[in-house]
């Protein structure tokens, strides 16, 4: 590998990539540019992280480095050079000769980024086929070497498989291997670890670290400062198409100069105590996120008489049960493809005390989501039961359970899919209120006024402007959608909120706002939260108690403090070790 020695050649290794005043726009010339003058440079063996929120222009920047911004893109720059050679205005044919050989690209979703119909050996072999004169058998041999180098154990076993037949980690390794097949001096990695489990994420970051150590220059694109801080030498923060801050990783993390950078740093939930704000009130563009601290439920009750009645717990005003939700020995199996039986949830028990948050954490396939569905009584458990406020819940027939459903709200990961696509925000909330208020809201103009008041109260609760009422969810941003989802869950004035990965599809900074919102609502409305996530940082931040799941079982429970400071189970320890932190 030729690049290996270039790094050790001297204190100033060769410049691998130089970008000066890159501007990229789409559509009409009148439309605002997405990238508005980005400049940076990168030397061999160096890793530059470009960090920014959705829409900040970071991916477009990454793609422009490979000339892949798309046919509709207008790309201009004062300089764009790879290893000192300008690539501005290269013909498509010339670009093709460089791609894969001079620069490689790794995308986020390996499942979709590798052709699902072709075995990975062919996918990786394509780079060799395109840029070398190796014959078929030589290519196969080389691919196995590359896969091995990418850390894939037993490459000969997996090389013939398609991306869908590999695990997430194997897949991502294969994707990186494909980009590195010709050992290009520059690698562009666009969110390479997003949506991966923490342990896999750590492995992938380790792999990238090795690649960098071999002398490859890496441009790492991410929205998560914690992730990049692990391997980046320097960080460039991009915001609205401009790089607002660049510096070594240490400089940026410790002395952020720009407010946006500070905001992004603050949004990282890891090691942030329960209840502390992740998003500054001023940094949130939504109009009413900042609640007046004095606000209490009674304040709402004054404005909306209807909700007073429904907000008051229906039963047991005096001796309220201490446990909001309790799972006792839950098990659930699914039939697999070849008659195999897969035990998704295995003897799971937990307790959610009233007004507190129970975080369930685990990697994909650990049974978290099935647990959530069991808790919502959407599927029946094979054995065990879920009790709600000390009374039967999962064992009831659905008809009887229906009356108690308003007590439990749910917030979903795929919030867009959980909305009826025909409905506007107003209709979604109307339906939600009507579903529980049912008869009490009644008809007539009084009912309509009460309904309108309730809907605006809900919007107020989640910090959304009324101007969004007529929108459809597809026209909202990810954060706004999740707020609408929360408002819908609150419509029935539930006592318990079950949140299944509510923030995992969101950027860190938006995630911070949603987490803050949930925290506030919990305190204001005395909600009990069952919070499910694969992200230990999030769980650590939101939970009072934590249950760690692996392969359908709860392997460790305890208070957040116990679990995160003194984990007893080796799996928990491994998870914690893998959590990206701000270094």
């Amino acid at each position, binding site marked *: 590998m030729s690049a290996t020695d270039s790094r050790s050649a001297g204190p100033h290794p060769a410049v691998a990539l130089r970008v000066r005043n890159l501007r990229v726009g*789409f*559509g009409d010339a009148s*439309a*605002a540019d*997405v990238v508005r003058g980005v400049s940076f440079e990168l030397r061999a063996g160096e890793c530059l992280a470009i960090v920014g929120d*959705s*829409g900040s222009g*970071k*991916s*477009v920047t990454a*793609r422009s480095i490979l000339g892949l*911004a*798309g046919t*509709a*893109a207008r790309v201009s720059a004062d300089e764009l050079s790879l290893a000192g050679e300008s690539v501005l205005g290269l013909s498509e044919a010339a670009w093709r000769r460089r791609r894969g050989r001079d620069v490689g690209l790794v995308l*986020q979703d390996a499942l979709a980024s590798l052709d699902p119909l072709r075995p990975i050996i062919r996918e990786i072999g394509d780079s060799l086929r395109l840029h070398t004169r190796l014959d078929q058998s030589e290519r196969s041999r080389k691919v196995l070497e590359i896969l091995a180098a990418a850390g894939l154990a037993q490459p000969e076993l997996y090389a013939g498989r398609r991306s869908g037949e590999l695990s997430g980690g194997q897949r991502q390794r294969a994707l990186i291997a494909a980009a590195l097949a010709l050992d290009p001096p520059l690698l562009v990695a*666009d*969110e390479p670890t997003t949506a991966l489990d923490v342990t896999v994420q750590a492995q992938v970051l380790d792999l990238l670290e090795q690649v960098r150590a071999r002398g490859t220059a890496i441009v790492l694109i991410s929205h998560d400062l914690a992730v990049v801080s692990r391997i980046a030498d320097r960080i460039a923060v991009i915001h609205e198409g401009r790089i607002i801050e660049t510096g070594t990783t240490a400089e940026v993390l410790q002395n952020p100069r720009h407010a946006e950078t500070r905001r992004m740093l603050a949004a990282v939930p890891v090691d942030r105590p329960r209840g502390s704000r992740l998003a500054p009130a001023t940094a949130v563009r939504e109009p009413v996120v900042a609640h007046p601290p004095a606000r209490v439920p009674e304040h709402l009750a004054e404005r909306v008489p209807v909700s007073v009645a429904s907000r008051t717990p229906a039963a047991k005003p005096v001796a309220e049960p201490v446990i909001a939700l309790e799972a006792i020995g839950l098990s659930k199996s699914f039939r697999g493809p070849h008659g195999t039986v897969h035990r998704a949830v295995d003897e799971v028990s937990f307790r959610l005390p009233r007004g507190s948050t129970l975080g369930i954490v685990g990697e994909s396939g650990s049974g978290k989501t099935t647990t959530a569905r069991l808790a*919502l009584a*959407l599927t029946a458990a094979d054995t065990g039961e879920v009790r709600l406020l000390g009374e039967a819940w999962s064992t009831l027939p659905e008809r009887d359970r*229906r*009356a*108690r*459903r*308003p007590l*439990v*709200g*749910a917030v*979903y990961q*795929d919030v867009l*899919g*959980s*909305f*009826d*696509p*025909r409905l506007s925000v107003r209709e979604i909330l109307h*339906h*939600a209120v009507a*579903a*529980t208020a049912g008869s009490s809201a009644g008809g007539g103009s009084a009912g309509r006024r009460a309904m309108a008041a309730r809907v605006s109260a809900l919007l107020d609760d989640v910090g959304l402007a009324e101007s*969004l009422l007529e*929108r*459809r969810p*597809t*026209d*909202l*941003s*990810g954060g*706004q959608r999740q707020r609408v989802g929360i408002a*819908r869950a609150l*419509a*029935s004035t539930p006592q318990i909120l079950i949140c299944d990965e509510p923030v995992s*599809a969101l*950027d860190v900074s938006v995630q911070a706002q949603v987490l803050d919102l949930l925290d506030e609502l919990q305190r204001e409305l005395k909600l009990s939260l069952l919070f499910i996530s694969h992200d230990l940082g999030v769980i650590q931040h939101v939970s009072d108690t934590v249950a760690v799941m692996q392969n359908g079982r709860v392997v460790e429970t305890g208070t957040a403090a116990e679990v995160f400071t003194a984990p007893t189970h080796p799996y928990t320890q491994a998870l914690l070790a893998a959590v990206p932190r701000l270094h």
Partner: protein
Amino acid sequence: MSELEIQASATGRSAGRSPASAPGGFGSMRVSVVELAAVLVAMLLLTAAIAPRLLAPGDPLAIDPLAAFGAPSWDHWFGTDESGRDIYTRVVDGARDSLLIGLTATVIGLGLGAVLGTIAGTLGAAVDFTVNRFLEVLFAFPGLLLALLFILVFGPGPGSAIVAVGLSTAPGYARIIRAQLLRVRSSAFVEAATVQGLGRGRILARHILPNTLAPLFVLGTLGIGQAIVWAAALSYLGLGAQPPAAEWGAMLSAGRTYITSAWWMSFFPGLFIVITAVCATTLGRSIERRMRHA
């Protein structure tokens, strides 16, 4: 994810996609020239169907044997047929019958398909199984044969042709509707409604059916074109509209005999069948695109 959105939207739409810049709904997409043309053609066809005399003041049935087989000319834009009738007038006049046949047949097919599909999708596994087998059987019949059999049982005529085309398109619709229903039924928003405590019936009425049946409009628009072609095929086989009605399929059928000597007799009715079908398809597709992006 959102980065990919930009990639996807790189073809023309605003890449920023900030909420404020997307007013949403139909207005957000530009109307293309093709769509405009389709709307215009559709309006002309509707005018022809509702008030044919506006576009062609003549009598579509007026014969003039001495002017038979006239090539297109200033007096007769589309020429004359074997009885000296003006083909332009007849084509305009035929719009009503042809559109009516296409429309009614599609409505019947869709309606039947919707009922079958809904029954299959809602009344449990046993019914689903039965209906599904039934649909498979119907599907194994070539559509034209189904129509032929129907017409032979109930006799030829426009009514039969309409029902026959409707019948033979119904299995296709039913399958689409059933699949859509199953998809909607297992969708996250139906689950969300369950969590809200809605009963099965209300979920069905409020969420599942509307979302299943909403695409029917588009499906129908796309289907009208085919229905018209099918009905024309039946007329061509002499099983559709009866003389002297100026239905396009029947005109085409009559004109086919004279194809080597008077091409205009079959060309223009055929052209209008194709234009109508293309127009319906274009409109259907554009509505679908808009609904998807709305």
